[in-house]
C-alpha cells in the first residue's frame, strides 16, 4: 500500500483545490511534525493497514513511526480508554472511531470519563483528546453505519463537538481541536470527503465555537453544519429564484455553538431555518430554535423551523434512503414556505 501523504503540501500550489480528505491528512501530518506529543490510534490507522479506512491517516506511520501511530484491535472502549490515559500523562491523542455509530461502544469512556475527569478532579487533570469519526447517509450503508449522534455529545457537559464542511475548515478545526485542552468530538461527513475546495494555509486555525457566514442574505437565516452546510448552499439557487435572499451560517462548531453570530443574523432577517442531517426530535435544531426564540421573542417574523431527517433509523433501500436524507429541494421548499408565510 502507498505510504505517502494523500497529496502534496498546500503551500506548494496556492491555487490548487484540495479535498476535505486531503486537508485532514495534511492537518495530521503538520500537527505530528509540530508537536512530538501528538499521537494517533484507531482501527487500521497505520500504513500497513492502509492508513485508515478512507485514508485520513495515510503516511503518518511511515513518517512518524508506529509508536505514535497505532493500529488497534476493533475495541472502541480500549481505544478511547487508551486515548484518555495517554492524555492524562501529557500526550495529545487523536483517536479514530471509524464510524459514528461505533462511538456507542465507547460511550462510558467518552461520557463518564473523558467529559468529566477535569471536573471531578477539581481541575487537577484534563483530557485533551480528539475523537475523529465519520458518518453520513447516502452510501446505502443502512441503519448502523450512517447516523448523526451529535446531539448526544452536545448534551454532555465537558465535551466539545465540531463538524466542518469544507477542506479549509476541516484543516483549521482539526488543528484547533488538537490544540484544545478538552475532549473534542470531530465529525467528518463521509460524502464530503471528496468535495474539493480552497486549500488551507499551512498552520491555519479555525477557532472552536466560531461560525462562518458562508453566504450573506436578508430574508431568512439558514443555520446548519457538516455536510448539510454544503447542501444548504446548493439550495440557494432555488431560493433566489423565488425572490428570497437567504443568509447561510455554517456553525462549524456544534458545541459550544456561536450564538452571537446566529442571533445577529436572525435579528436582521427575522426568520430562522435550522438544517441538519440528524433526526429532528430532540436534536441540535431544537436547542437552536429554543435559544433563538428566547432571545428574539417578539422580533421574529415567523416561528423557527427545523429541517432534518424523519424519526426513523437510516434505511437501506435507495428510494427510502433518499427520502430520509435532507436534500437541496427540501431545504429550498422549507425556506420559501417560511418566508411566504406557509409555516
Amino acid at each position: 500500500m502507498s505510504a505517502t501523504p494523500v497529496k502534496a503540501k498546500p503551500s506548494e500550489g496556492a491555487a490548487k483545490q484540495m479535498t476535505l480528505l486531503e486537508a485532514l491528512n495534511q492537518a495530521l501530518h503538520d500537527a505530528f511534525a509540530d508537536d512530538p506529543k501528538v499521537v494517533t490510534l484507531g482501527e487500521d490507522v497505520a500504513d500497513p493497514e492502509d492508513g485508515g479506512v478512507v485514508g485520513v491517516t495515510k503516511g503518518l506511520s511511515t513518517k512518524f513511526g508506529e509508536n505514535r501511530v497505532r493500529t488497534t484491535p476493533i475495541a472502541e472502549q480500549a481505544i478511547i480508554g487508551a486515548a484518555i490515559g495517554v492524555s492524562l500523562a501529557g500526550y495529545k491523542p487523536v483517536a479514530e472511531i471509524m464510524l459514528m455509530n461505533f462511538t456507542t461502544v465507547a460511550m462510558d469512556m467518552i461520557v463518564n470519563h473523558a467529559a468529566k475527569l477535569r471536573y471531578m478532579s477539581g481541575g487537577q487533570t484534563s483530557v485533551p483528546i480528539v475523537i475523529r469519526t465519520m458518518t453520513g447517509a447516502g452510501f446505502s450503508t443502512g441503519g448502523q453505519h450512517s447516523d448523526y449522534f451529535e446531539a448526544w455529545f452536545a448534551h454532555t457537559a465537558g465535551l466539545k463537538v465540531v463538524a466542518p464542511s469544507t477542506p479549509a475548515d476541516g484543516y483549521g478545526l482539526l488543528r484547533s481541536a488538537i490544540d484544545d485542552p478538552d475532549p473534542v468530538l470531530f465529525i467528518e461527513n463521509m460524502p464530503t470527503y471528496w468535495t474539493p475546495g480552497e486549500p488551507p494555509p499551512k498552520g491555519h486555525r479555525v477557532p472552536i465555537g466560531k461560525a462562518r457566514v458562508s453566504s450573506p442574505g436578508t430574508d431568512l437565516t439558514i443555520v446548519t453544519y457538516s455536510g448539510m452546510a454544503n447542501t444548504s448552499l446548493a439550495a440557494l439557487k432555488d431560493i433566489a429564484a423565488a425572490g428570497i435572499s437567504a443568509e447561510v451560517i455554517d456553525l462549524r462548531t456544534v458545541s459550544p455553538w456561536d450564538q452571537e453570530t446566529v442571533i445577529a443574523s436572525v435579528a436582521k432577517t427575522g426568520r430562522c431555518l435550522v438544517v441538519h442531517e440528524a433526526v429532528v426530535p430532540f436534536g441540535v435544531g431544537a436547542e437552536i430554535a429554543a435559544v433563538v426564540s428566547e432571545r428574539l421573542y417578539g422580533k421574529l417574523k415567523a416561528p423557527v423551523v427545523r429541517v432534518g431527517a424523519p424519526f426513523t433509523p437510516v434505511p437501506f433501500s435507495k428510494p427510502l434512503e433518499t427520502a430520509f436524507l435532507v436534500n437541496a429541494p427540501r431545504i429550498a421548499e422549507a425556506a420559501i414556505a417560511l418566508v411566504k408565510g406557509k409555516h
Partner: protein
Amino acid sequence: MLNNYQLDGPTQVEIFRRMALLKGNDERCRKMVTTGRLVMTYYSYRGQEVIPAAMSVNLTDQDYLCTIYRGIHDMLAKGLPLKDLWAEIAGRVDGTCKGKGGPMHLTYPKKGIMVTTGIVGATLPIANGLAWASQLSKDGRVALATFGDGASNIGAFHEALNLAAVWKLPVIFLCQNNQYGEHTAYAKSTSAKRIADRAIAYGIPGLHVNGNDPFEMYAAARQAVERARAGEGPTLIEAVTFRFHGHVFGDADKYMDKAQKAAAVAADPYPIYRTKLIATGVASEAELAKIEADVEAALDVAVEFALQAAYPGLEELTTDVYGVSA
C-alpha cells in the same frame, strides 16, 4: 509461578504500617457515617488491606494508579495525604478535588493517583493509556489498574487485557477478588474458576494469590512490577480476599453466606500479620502499638481539619467544566 523474594524486616514493618493506616481509616469512616457526622455513600474495604499495602511498597510516586469506588485503601497506600482525603469526602474546598469528586472520584496526581471511577471495569482501558505514555516517554513508570472480581465479567476488562498484551504495555491489572460483585456471589456471575486463568486467553501471566497473605501478595506485586519495568508486558494478578462490610456500608448482608463471612472475619489478616511480626521478632508490640497510635492521631487531625474546612464557593459549580484555550 511466584518468585521467591526475601522480605526484609523494614519492608515487613512498612507493609504493616500501611495496613494499620488503611484499617484505621476505614474504621473512622464507618464511625463517622454511623454517628451521622458525615453523609456519604461508603464502600468499606475492611478485610482487603493487605493487597494495596503489599502492592504499593513496590511502586514509586511516579507510577500511575487507576482505582475504583472501593479504592480509598489503594489511594492511601499510594500516598494520598489523610487531610486531603478527609476534606474531599466531607465535600470541602480543601479536598483533593475541591469537594467536587467525593469518595468515588478522588484524584491526586502528585502521588500518581490519576483516576478513581464509579464505573465497573473502567480502570483497565485508561491504565493502558497511561502505560502507553510510559512506553512513549521511556520513563520506566508502570500503570496499575485495580478492580473487583465483578469487573472481570465486563467487556472493558477483555478489551483492555487484549490491547495491553498486543502492545506489551507496562501495566498491572490487579483484581481484588472479594468474592461478591455487588450482592451477587462469585460463582453465580463468573464462569472461570479463577480470574487469573482469564490471562491465558490473552497470552499474559495470570497470578492467583492469597490477597490476605502479605508475603504472597508482595511476591506477586514485585514480579508484575519487575516484568512491567523490564518492558516485558502486562500481568494479571488475582488477589483473593473478602470484604467485611458488604457492598455499600449499611446494607443488610442478607445475600451473604453467614458461615463464609464468619470464617473470613475470623481469619482477619490484620491481627494475624500483627501477631506474626511480633512472634518472628521483626517488630515489638510497643513498635506496632506506636504505629497504630500514630494512625489514630493523624486521623484525629485530618478529621478535625476536614470538618473545619469551608465548603466550595458556588462559583465552583461551573468551574472546571472546560479548560482555558491557549
